[in-house]
């Protein structure tokens, strides 16, 4: 097991968003979390990534994490290559090779020297994703990672996710698309602040 989550609770003011979330994930597993808007999916992923502190409960994991936030968190004044350089330093990687291969796999190499503020939504999301994956983390946390992708890039994304899985990485994806579910090993439904099995209509 690489990720063990027990009794995670989180509230904002009087609103309890997570009421005791628990699950486990193994190496080489593709795990999906679905739920209605405002169910707390993003809050849960932010807690798993260390961005938010839970009010209660425990998150335990093995190895490193990579987090792709729902909306691209980038510096609009820098280029794609400058982002890769900064995160190469952050992750203490010896070179940019891995990141450049990912950029290439997502067909974004022609934008390497473009300023982020000039990029389309889909290309921003590609960079957002690459920054989460370039250090080859053990646990990958993706919050609706294909927003803005065209169909071909969407398929490339799933190809990438399955390659990560085959190399023993754990991939946790927040999704709202019913047709993604057949690509996943495990699917949870976040409802009323707890994780449960998906409603039968959501399963493929």
């Amino acid at each position, binding site marked *: *097991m690489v990720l063990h989550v027990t009794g995670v609770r989180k509230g904002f003011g009087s609103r309890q968003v997570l009421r005791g979330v628990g699950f486990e994930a193994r190496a080489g597993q593709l795990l999906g979390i679905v739920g209605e808007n405002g169910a707390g999916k993003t809050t849960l992923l932010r807690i798993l990534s260390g*961005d938010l502190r839970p009010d209660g409960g425990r998150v*335990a994991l*093995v190895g490193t994490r990579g987090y792709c936030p729902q909306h691209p968190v980038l*510096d609009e*004044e*820098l280029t794609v290559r400058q982002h890769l350089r900064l995160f190469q*330093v*952050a992750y203490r990687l010896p070179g940019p090779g891995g990141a450049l291969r990912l950029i290439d796999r997502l067909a974004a190499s022609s934008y390497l020297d473009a300023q982020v503020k000039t990029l389309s939504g889909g290309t921003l999301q590609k960079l957002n994703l690459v920054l989460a994956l370039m250090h080859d983390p053990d646990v990958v946390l993706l919050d609706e990672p294909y927003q803005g992708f065209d169909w071909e890039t969407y398929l490339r994304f799933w190809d990438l996710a399955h390659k990560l899985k085959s190399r023993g990485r754990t991939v946790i994806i927040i999704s709202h698309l019913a047709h993604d579910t057949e690509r996943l090993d495990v699917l949870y439904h976040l409802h009323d602040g707890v994780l449960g099995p998906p409603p039968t209509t959501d399963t493929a």
Partner: protein
Amino acid sequence: MSAYLVASRYALLAVAKNRLAAVLLIVFIPVWITVAKTLTTPKTFPFRLRATGTWLRAGGDEITMISGSLNAVSLLLGFLMFSAARRTRAFDRRLTAAGYPRTALIGAKLTTLVVASVLVSAYATAWMLLFWTPLQPVLLGVAVLADCLVYGAMGMFLALFLRGEVEGLVTIIMASIIDLAPQSPVASTTADKPLVEFLPSYGSLQTSLAAGFTRDVTLSPLLHSTAWLTAMTTTALVAFVLRTRVHQPHRLDHDA
């Protein structure tokens, strides 16, 4: 290249692309200084320099030029640093969560503040020297630099509370007006209200007036600038450290 050098280089590159700040630098500073020197009265009148207690005489145009250039550089640096802090707020969180050393990012922010302040103050002082020969030009440059640093730090401080670029710009404009207008020797010839010493530009204005019209190296007012600079920079940096905390997970044994 070290984490500090990479962060500083990119922070300075990003700041250099700030178009509104570039317009303020290229147009606003020379226009303000030129207007103040050419349209206001050259007639001299007496005023008391609060820092030393001595009475001096100076032309209204020269006093207005000093006050106007401090006003212009304070707006520019305040806006520049506010804009940079606001732009990188979420990105800094992501970078530090990924493992970027926070000390390197803090170093880059301070480097940006110092480099931008040195360049802008040298530029504004050079424009003043085109119109006027102060008795101590170097001390005048130091006084303008102090105002740049104080307002740059104020921009970083305001970015903790204000979200929008317009909110920040308007607040900095108002702060600079409320700061400089009541302590100008044109408005306050006797400078007998002790509260003026608490204004952010008090140190810079007193030192500029001493540099312009005396041969005394009057540095004590700059202690007031140092206090403002230290208080606002420290608050901004402590807030940065608190905001970029990452909540580490428990370690799980492989065979758990």
